[in-house]
């Protein structure tokens, strides 16, 4: 087993080097509520991946615009329609993304994590932080649906 402080991957680990079983677990989380679409739609074009893998380094609004168009997303939908029902559509999407691009454009775990936070896909982001990187869960925004929702211990208490 892993000792307490070691992580399975680092932020610069390329996604294509991540074990299939780990990608599969992530994919099942992204399948819920079609979260893979949100991730795919914000992947930026022409990332300098090694420079972007560290915490807080991705400039999402990078000049290149989005890597994938609505048509690319429909293509994944088309592939998924021919999949057996127990197969993960998110896995198809990640398989396309992880092998795409030139040498320094291939996505890393660090890039993935930051894009998940940017898209507010916190189930997947928490999973990647804890299980891939052995890092604390990413911070939540102060407002909106992702914000912490806690018990109000107020005056309506007897």
């Amino acid at each position, binding site marked *: 087993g892993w000792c307490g402080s070691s992580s399975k991957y680092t932020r610069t680990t390329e996604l294509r080097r991540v074990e299939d079983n780990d990608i599969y677990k992530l994919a099942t989380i992204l399948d*819920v*509520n079609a*979260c893979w679409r949100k991730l795919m739609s914000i992947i930026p074009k022409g990332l300098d991946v090694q420079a972007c893998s560290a915490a807080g380094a991705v400039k999402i609004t990078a000049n290149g615009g989005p890597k994938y168009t609505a048509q690319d997303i429909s293509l994944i939908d088309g592939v998924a329609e021919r999949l057996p029902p127990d197969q993960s559509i998110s896995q198809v999407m990640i398989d396309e993304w992880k092998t795409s691009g030139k040498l320094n454009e291939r996505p890393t775990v660090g890039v993935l994590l930051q894009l998940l936070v940017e898209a*507010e*896909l*916190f*189930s997947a982001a*928490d999973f990647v932080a804890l299980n891939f990187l052995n890092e604390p869960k990413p911070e939540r925004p102060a*407002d*909106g*649906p*992702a*914000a*912490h*929702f*806690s*018990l*109000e*211990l*107020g*005056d309506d*208490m007897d």
Partner: protein
Amino acid sequence: RTRSRSHQDDTLLIRLLPVVARHQLCVHLDSLDVWQQLATAVKLYPEQVEQIRHQKDRGRSPANEFMNIWGGQYNHTVQSLFALFKKLKLHHAMRMIKDYVNEDLHKYIPRSVP
């Protein structure tokens, strides 16, 4: 006054609730037709509210779709769901998930009226 408990909250995730418990809870919430109150209270985005309405129009459970979004995408816990039910005074719903939250929170559930 409010006091935040969020940073001690490492309890069960909504998305890991047992299927039967989740189903019974959704049946109850749908019978009360409270999905819009739930969505408003946690500040879902307009397109997410539309998505729930769309599922409802197709005959699917709006409460289940709410949990797919709020629990499935955002990784909120059953304790947060309990807090949400308390805020909206959904006392029977609080009772239905009490076995999945810490016992010291049970005091927030009002006694049931006979």
